[in-house]
């Protein structure tokens, strides 16, 4: 299992070690080790909110992929190693982690999970004398598009989620007016903006767009307005699973029984009991999909981590990204810039990678190319696909 380091501690440690003495010692150490020991491992960085359900299993998924690669002989005669840093879902921590990983021997980074943390950390990864490529498994905010040549993502953007939700609401549910409650960050604003654009283009109307940060206090007046006005035919919640659960509880408490739709941030809500029943969730990947590749991955997962829940999309995407990086490293080596170019070429000048989450290829702006989003509904504590992606 990889060592998960606190972001602050790691940052201080790396700042201390970032001096010339460290480089000298590192060079001497590498020389001595090269003369009498195995070659140093190839390090891949990983960062996310490991205490949050969204990022709770991504370390295990990435480690599973690394173990598979090492079991097959490693890469270019070297072992693969994971360096995981918890960003706590906090932008400042994400910035510190980014500085640490950029200064480390890591050749690439998998992370972060939230769009806000990725938005804060991406400029750090892409700056300096030796920038490092970062591939996020789940940050879907449109603000991340073309944020820099070193940022890639293995998930659809919020434009896809918002568009899928709007289409389903309009065409699937026959809804014409909705109220949107969105977490006031890049992700929430992305879902809100994409949904509103598609929905209004189809003829629907947004009767209210309500930002929140603390759903326990912020959404009460919004829900009261929705309940009082009675215009909204559905609620769109653009936030996380926890936030959605709180909002749903407050809405149910106010007698609001409107259909609820949400983005992939609500993934896992099916495990929160009856409050989530009937909620429509857009998603790029579901572990319940009956595909051989997914089932094989889940079988391996269960054998390796029988005590853990099934992996979510960020975890599955992290697993895929490790294998994708392995392909690129095997091809071009561990030089960061060559590796970045090799990642950028995936799906363009080189073949796309067929992973557990589907086909991975990147646009020239770093987004995932050609991946559609499906709609699932929470029913009986499970997510059931209602729109095939």
């Amino acid at each position, binding site marked *: 299992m990889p060592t998960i380091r606190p972001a602050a501690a790691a940052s201080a440690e790396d700042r201390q070690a970032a001096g010339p003495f460290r480089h000298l010692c590192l060079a001497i150490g590498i020389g001595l080790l090269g003369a009498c020991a195995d070659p140093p491992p190839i390090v891949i960085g990983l960062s996310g909110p490991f205490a949050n359900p969204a990022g709770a299993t991504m370390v295990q998924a990435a480690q599973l992929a690394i173990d598979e690669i090492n079991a097959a002989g490693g890469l270019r005669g070297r072992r693969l190693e994971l360096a995981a840093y918890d960003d706590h879902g906090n*932008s*400042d921590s994400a*910035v*510190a982690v*980014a*500085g640490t990983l950029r200064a480390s021997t890591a050749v690439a980074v998998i992370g972060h999970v939230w769009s*806000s943390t990725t*938005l*804060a*950390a*991406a*400029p*750090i990864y892409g*700056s300096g004398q030796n920038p490092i490529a970062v591939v996020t498994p789940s940050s879907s905010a449109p*603000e991340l598009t073309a*944020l*820099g040549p070193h940022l890639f993502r293995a998930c659809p953007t919020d434009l896809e989620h918002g568009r899928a939700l709007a289409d389903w609401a309009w065409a699937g549910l026959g809804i014409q007016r909705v109220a949107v409650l969105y977490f*006031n*960050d*890049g992700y929430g*604003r992305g879902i809100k*903006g994409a949904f509103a654009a598609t929905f209004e283009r189809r003829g629907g109307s947004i009767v209210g*767009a*309500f*930002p*929140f*940060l603390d759903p326990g206090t*912020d959404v009460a*007046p*919004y829900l*009261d*307005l929705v309940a*009082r006005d009675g215009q909204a035919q559905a609620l769109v919640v653009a936030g996380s699973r926890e936030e959605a659960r709180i909002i749903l509880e407050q809405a149910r408490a106010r007698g609001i029984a409107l259909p609820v739709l949400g983005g992939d941030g609500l993934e896992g809500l099916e495990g929160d009991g009856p409050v989530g029943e009937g909620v429509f969730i857009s998603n790029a990947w579901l572990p319940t999909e009956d595909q051989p590749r997914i089932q094989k991955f889940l079988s391996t997962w269960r054998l390796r981590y029988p005590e853990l829940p099934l992996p979510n999309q960020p975890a599955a995407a992290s697993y895929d990204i490790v294998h994708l990086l392995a392909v690129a490293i095997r091809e071009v080596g561990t030089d960061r810039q060559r590796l970045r170019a090799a990642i950028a070429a995936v799906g363009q000048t080189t073949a796309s990678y067929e992973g557990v989450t589907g086909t991975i290829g990147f646009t020239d702006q770093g987004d995932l190319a050609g991946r559609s989003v499906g709609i699932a509904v929470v029913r009986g504590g499970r997510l059931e696909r209602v729109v095939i992606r």
Partner: protein
Amino acid sequence: MRGGTSLRGRLAATMALLLALVLVLAVVSATAMSNLDRATTEAVGSLVDGGRLRAAMTDAITLQIRLADRELSQPGPDDQIALSALTDSTHQLHRQLRLLKGQGPEDQAQLNRISEAQARMEVAYATAMAWQALGELERAAAAESRADAEAALVLNEVRKLSGLQWSRALTQADDLRKTAARLRTVLWALFFLALVIGVTSAWRTIRSVDGPLARLVAATQRFSAGDLRAADLSGMPAELAALGSAMNTMGGRIRHLLAAIAQESREIGTSASDFSAMSEELAATSGQVSEAMVLMTQAADSQVNALREADIRLGELRESGSATLRAAQRVTAVAESIATMADDHRDHVLAASATLLTLRETVRTSAIEVREATKQADRLGGIVERDRQLATKLGVLAVNTSIEAARAGTHGQGVAAVAEEIRLLGELCESVAEEGDRAVAALQRQVHATAATLETGTNTVLGIEATADRAATALAEIAKGIAEANRVAGRVVQDAAAARQGIAAMLEYTAAVSRAASEHAETGDSVSAAAEEQAAATEEMATAAARLNDAAQRLTGLLDGFRT
């Protein structure tokens, strides 16, 4: 500098080094200036963009606050739409601020604080408006108050960001100044390094060219002074080495040439000495030839004289023969007359005896003349023998002359011609001697026979006085004897005729020998003249040999001025 490289290569290497230094200096300067310019541009651009974005964000947030306040005081759909658009615009500005170049973690953290404060402000305003819409004015006021606080915080955080970025800009400016100063120092150091390297390289190049060039000049001067020893070409540039090599090659050839000339001059001196000696020998031989020619001429003259004497004697002998013939004819006639008279006149026997006495005297006289002819014939044989000796000497002389002519080579061609003439003269003398010998032998035989006959007649006549008395009685015998005498006289006539013919032939031979002797004399004169010419030529040859020897010695003296 390494030895053996070409002058062009050394100069090219030096120029290349200087150019490389200039190029490196230029590249380093250009790169450094470019980097400095880029850093300055980035810093200034970042500063300008950051200032512009921060100002725009400040304006947007200020407007956002104003619109929110107006929406709270006078709600309207237009302000909500404008506020929503302004919110999106503010977040775009926020994103652009994140992407500014040169931002560090502190900037991103400050942006996070701004973003979070702005999010809180927006949520506060939104909840305030919702509360107000719900008629919950106190809650709305409370929320608005939080919003105002968050707005103030946002603006404060933006100002902090401005201060942070200004501070970083000042730090960057200070870094740029330090970088520029460091760059200036490095460039000066590089310039002085390039100058030192360039001057050192140029000095080394000049020294590497000047030294070998001076050595080459010294070697050339030695050559001009006659010291043809090879120049030392070690360490010379290729071009100078090629020049020196050519000079050494030329010196080597001159050395070989001088050695050959010295050898030839020595051989010429030796040949001149030999030639001089040979000229002296030839001169001596010419004297001998001249003496021999004089002797030969004298011998020829003597021969001519002898032959003239012989001719005279032969003429006399011919006359004597004629007389003998006439006497024999007269004896015959007398004998016939005596026989007739003896037959007719015994008395006339006495007269006949007297006539016989006369005859006896005549015979005696003939015998004396025959003996004289014999003597002349013997003398003629001596002349012929001397002629043979002369021919032998001429032959020896011709052989010697031929040998000397062969020694003289082309210079002895005249002598060879003389030797050939001498040889021909010898052969002619030999031939004349043989012919004379044969003629003299025949003459002697005839003369001896005549002498014997005359002796017999004499002996016969000697008893005539004693037998005169018996003459009458023995007239018959006398007649018989006269018949016999007549027969003998006929025979004497025949022999006298033969002798006359032989004498005539001998006269012809003698004339031929005389002519040959005259020719010998003339040839001897020619040979003597040729010998004199040869002597003169020999002197000229000796003079030429002496001059040749002198020239060879002068040449050797000249060669002594060279050191090889």
